[in-house]
Structures are given as structure tokens and as C-alpha cells.
């Protein structure tokens, strides 16, 4: 996580390539990984999630890591030569994959192809995303 705190000490990147990043859970809460892009509305700030059970905790872990990877993905579309951010992308994509694996082991598939070979077909089981599954 050091990379999130010590941007200013990195001298290997050009000035415009340096990105000051929020911590993953804070970035997810705010909807923005990049500190210099963040703009609040009338001082409103989101609150940190307090997962109520293991399912929520494990799903949140997938969502947070996927979000960070996705934010870096959008950045890299425009800056495909930023080596540090490419590394960071792969780090978070890997974490997201692992988090998804952990979730699916206990709570069923997020992607249909990860369904267990059981009857009835595991994929159709509730909850669906709009059913307060958080």
C-alpha cells in the first residue's frame, strides 16, 4: 500500500504521470480513486460501509478491488505508457479475482460459468443484485 502514500518520493515518473490516490476502501466509498479529481457537493461526504455479515464483507471486497482496477483501467486507456499504473492495475485485478473466488466458494457464482455442478442449476438462485443483496 506504500504506493498510495509516497507518490511525491517517486522520481522515476514524469511530473504529469504522478497520481495521488485514495486508499481503496475510501476511493470506493467516494466513487473516485484520484485525489486531484475529487469534488464534493455541498460538503456532503459518503460514509464508510459497515458490512453486517460475512456475505456483505466478502462482496464488498470484490467490489472495492474491482473498482480500483477499473479506475486505473480508464486512466490507462488515455495513458497507456504509465508503467507504475500498469503494475498497479495488475495488482488490483489479481486481488479482485482472488476476492471473487473467495466469495463464490461460500455464496455462489457471480459469473454463470463459476456455478457448481449441482441440481437445480446454481446460477438462478437468489439474491439477484437488486434484491438488497448489497
Amino acid at each position, binding site marked *: 500500500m506504500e504506493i498510495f502514500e509516497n507518490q511525491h518520493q517517486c522520481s522515476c515518473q514524469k511530473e504529469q504521470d504522478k497520481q495521488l490516490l485514495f486508499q481503496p476502501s475510501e476511493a*470506493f*466509498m*467516494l*466513487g*473516485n*480513486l*484520484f485525489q486531484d*479529481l*475529487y*469534488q464534493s*457537493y*455541498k460538503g*456532503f*461526504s*459518503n*460514509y464508510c*460501509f459497515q458490512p453486517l455479515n460475512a456475505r*456483505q464483507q466478502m*462482496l*464488498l471486497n*470484490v*467490489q472495492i478491488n*474491482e*473498482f480500483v482496477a*477499473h*479506475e486505473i*483501467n*480508464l*486512466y490507462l*486507456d*488515455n495513458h*497507456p505508457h504509465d508503467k507504475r499504473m500498469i503494475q498497479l492495475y495488475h495488482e488490483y485485478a489479481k486481488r479482485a479475482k482472488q476476492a471473487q473466488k473467495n466469495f463464490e466458494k461460500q455464496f455462489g*457464482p*457471480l*459469473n*454463470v460459468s463459476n456455478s457448481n455442478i449441482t441440481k437445480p442449476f446454481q*446460477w438462478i438462485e437468489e439474491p*439477484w*443484485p*437488486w434484491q*438488497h*443483496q*448489497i
Partner: protein
Amino acid sequence: MWSYSKKLQYPVDIKRKDIQMAKYIITQFGGANGELGACLRYLTQRYTMPDDKGKALLTDIGTEEMAHMEMISAMVYQLLEGASLDEIKAAGLEAHYTEHGVSLYPIDANGVPFTVTYFAVTGDPVADLAEDMAAEQKARTTYEHLMDLTDDPDLLAPLSYLRQREIVHYQRFKELYDEYVKKYYQPDIKRCQK
């Protein structure tokens, strides 16, 4: 192609039924500045982007907009859950109820159905990206208006999150817009070397 992941991009768990807010928030599904329009706009414009950056960015942001449409739909669905006929009447949603029950349908806050004329595809990357930047700003404003209309933290959290996404998307579109203007419309300008 796309593959579906059985989760929301960001949690939506609304405990307080609010038919009036459902009536307003649905505009971010089917309104002029809504997520359905955003998603169709970017995923249609991407084919004529001039280089790899544009093709990638419009694909990736267009894909994220689908996830936002899903969040908005989940919000409307949960806000209407268990609504009685009296509550539907009190919120002035009888017409919606007549046509759609308490189901989802892409309309704006005035009940006007979605139309593809909400977005343009010109084939000119600079013109298209300028529209995309404006679209993100208009969506940001709409989210702010929606935030003004509620004090429910379960609504404010996802609305604030979605508003922030518009800000990030705007920045990405602007970066590409500036690059394309220099590349395609000012290629002969000699720039000062630092």
C-alpha cells in the same frame, strides 16, 4: 460481447419506501441525461474513434454506464417495493401504474419515454467527445438536484457515488478531447519546447 456479473458496482440497499423519489430518480434511467442514454451514446460512438485510446475509453466507460443503469434501476425498484395504490395515487403515478404497474420503464421525471434523439453520433471524434463531456456535466447536475430532494442516507450514498463517477468520466473524455484537437486540428502548430 459482454459478460454479466451478479452484483452491483456499488451497494444499493434502500430501507425506506419513497414513491415520490422513485418518480424523480427514474430520470437517470430513461431521461435525457440518464445512464441508458450515456451507455448507448458511448457504445455507439466508439466505432469511429480514430485510435486505440478512443476505442478503449468509449468501450470501457460505456460498459460502466450499463452498471450505473443497473444501480438506478435497483434504486427505483427498491423505492417502489410494497407501494400501495393510495401511495401511488398520492405520488401522481397513476399513469405509470396503468401502463407498467410498479415495473421499470425508461422515462424521465415528467413521464416522457426514452428516445435515442437524446444523443448524437457525428463520426467526428472531437464533436462526439465534446458531447460526451457535456453529457457527463449534465448528469452530474441531475445527480445534485436529486441529492437536494432527499435526506435519506441510503439514497444519498449511491447518488453521491454516481455523481462522482460523472466527474471522473468528464476528466477522461476531456484528456482525450484535448489530445484529438491537437492531433487532428492543430497538427501544424509549432509548440514551445520546455
